[in-house]
């Protein structure tokens, strides 16, 4: 059963057509990875789902409801959270304030907070620090933590490993594995090893169109297909 369906979605940015025809089924549960080269349309796909850029045609169906015309805030309230490529943290706010802002009623659920401390111990250490003073990896942890501080149905994550040290990437992979046990993750990634270690299903986008979709295990086993679709280094 799909939690999210994109049907012939098209998105224009200014006068440029970036997504031409994106049709995709994201099954409920686990990590769905969207792969593609730079400029293929991965980020635009996530932003279009989130309503930050409105699709000019096609539809975005979340749990059977068409959300393509909805305001971003309403989409978020349906249970979709977004971890953008630039992390989108509020540097002038403390770690605590960044997280409390993402709660529905301005109060933490202690059990969820304890889980976040377990996943990202650094956030507890720097709880009262302003977010701008955190390292890149800690900022990414905060951005992911903010996405799961409330129960969510779907998390859209845009290139979370970009610029991070290998040790932090490993910690992030562990965190995503645990989050994916209860929440569906749509992950956009260029780091194929990271994506391969997490993904159950996957798709490749190229020039604003879905060029391939299937299981990650099959795709990981087909080196010529990877080379043809991604032109990625192994």
């Amino acid at each position, binding site marked *: 059963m799909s939690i999210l369906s994109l049907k012939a979605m098209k998105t224009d940015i200014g006068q440029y057509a970036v997504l031409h025809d994106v049709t995709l089924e994201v099954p409920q549960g686990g990590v769905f990875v969207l792969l593609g080269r730079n400029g293929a349309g991965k980020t635009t796909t996530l932003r279009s789902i*989130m309503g930050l850029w409105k699709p000019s045609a096609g539809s975005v169906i979340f749990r059977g409801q068409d959300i393509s015309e909805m305001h*971003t*805030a309403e989409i*978020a309230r349906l249970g979709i959270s977004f971890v*953008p490529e630039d992390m*989108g943290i509020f540097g002038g706010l403390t770690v605590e304030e960044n997280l409390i802002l*993402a709660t529905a009623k301005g109060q933490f659920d202690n059990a969820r907070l304890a889980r976040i401390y377990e996943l990202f111990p650094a956030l507890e250490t720097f709880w009262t620090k302003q977010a701008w003073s955190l390292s890149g990896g800690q900022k990414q942890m905060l951005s992911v933590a903010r996405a799961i501080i409330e129960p969510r149905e779907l998390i859209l994550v845009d290139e979370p490993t970009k610029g991070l040290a290998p040790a932090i990437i490993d910690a992030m992979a562990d965190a995503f594995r645990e989050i994916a046990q209860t929440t569906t993750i749509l992950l956009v990634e260029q780091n194929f090893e990271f994506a391969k270690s997490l993904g159950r299903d996957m798709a490749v986008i190229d020039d604003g169109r879905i060029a391939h979709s299937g299981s990650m295990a099959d795709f990981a086993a087909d080196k010529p297909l990877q080379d043809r679709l991604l032109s990625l280094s192994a």
Partner: protein
Amino acid sequence: METITKIVTRFGGVSLLPVAVALLAFVLIGAPSSWVTLTIAGLAMGMMIFLMASGLSLVFGLMDVMNFGHSAFISFGAFIAASVLAGLSGWLGSDLIILNIAALFLAFAAAILFGMAAGWFFEAVIIKPVYKDHLRQILITMGALIVAEQMILALWGGAPMTVHRPQFLEGSFLIGDITIEVYRAFAFMLGLAVYVALYLTLNRTRIGLLIRAGVENREMVEALGFRIDRLFVGVFMLGSALAAMGGAIWAGYETLITPALGGEMMIVVFIVVIIGGLGSIEGTLLGAIMVGLMANYVGYLAPKLALTSNMILMMVILLWRPNGLKPAVK
């Protein structure tokens, strides 16, 4: 520049800059009583400018709107308050302090209510169509300012208007050989109260948290489930009301106002917002106090430089800190 920053940080950071300016002025002025009088005048002036500038800073920072029409709210606030005070002149001259206070309260309330209503209208009709387009924002808000000034001319005429003060705010009191004007002390206390209220709202409430987050990244606030466009309207109304209130207090301070008041204050208000750092209430207060103190000290020490002192201050600070003294976004 890094050396200057290190020295300033070592001595307590930019928040202590007004203290440094005051100490330098103390050495240059020499006479302690004159220095105290000028310092209090500067602080009172700074607080009034803060009231006028704080709304613009929030609107600039949160909404990324260059509202050159902001001074229209200052002008209207001044004229509305002056008209209410003129209408209640009997209460102002009364020996009953309660009537004095009631007249002042009604004048400020009228200015604030007008500011809120006009702010709502201005945002809906003038600002909303030009979001994300700075050039059109400048053109349309400057046009709105011209229209507003002409409306004031049509309603109140071009002749300067005398502003009546309540009896209890007239005169001055002496502490030793130091003279302190009652109205200046009142303006300072009122400005301080508004600053504390704003500070607590921004730092101790959820709506304040949203505003601070929105100043940094509007898109992300929306992605967390909040309708920032509705927050914009509220902040715009608040900013307009603060400007109108600032205009009302400034009118009582000047006691003679003209339709050009807003336009004249706009330059100072923009300097304060730029010096302080966009979207930062603490920065706006710091910038306003610096400007108020500089205007008074320089006016006393080198009157010919009085008009340019704030421009020079802005240039020096921007060369040192291009984002202002305390920008909201690091």
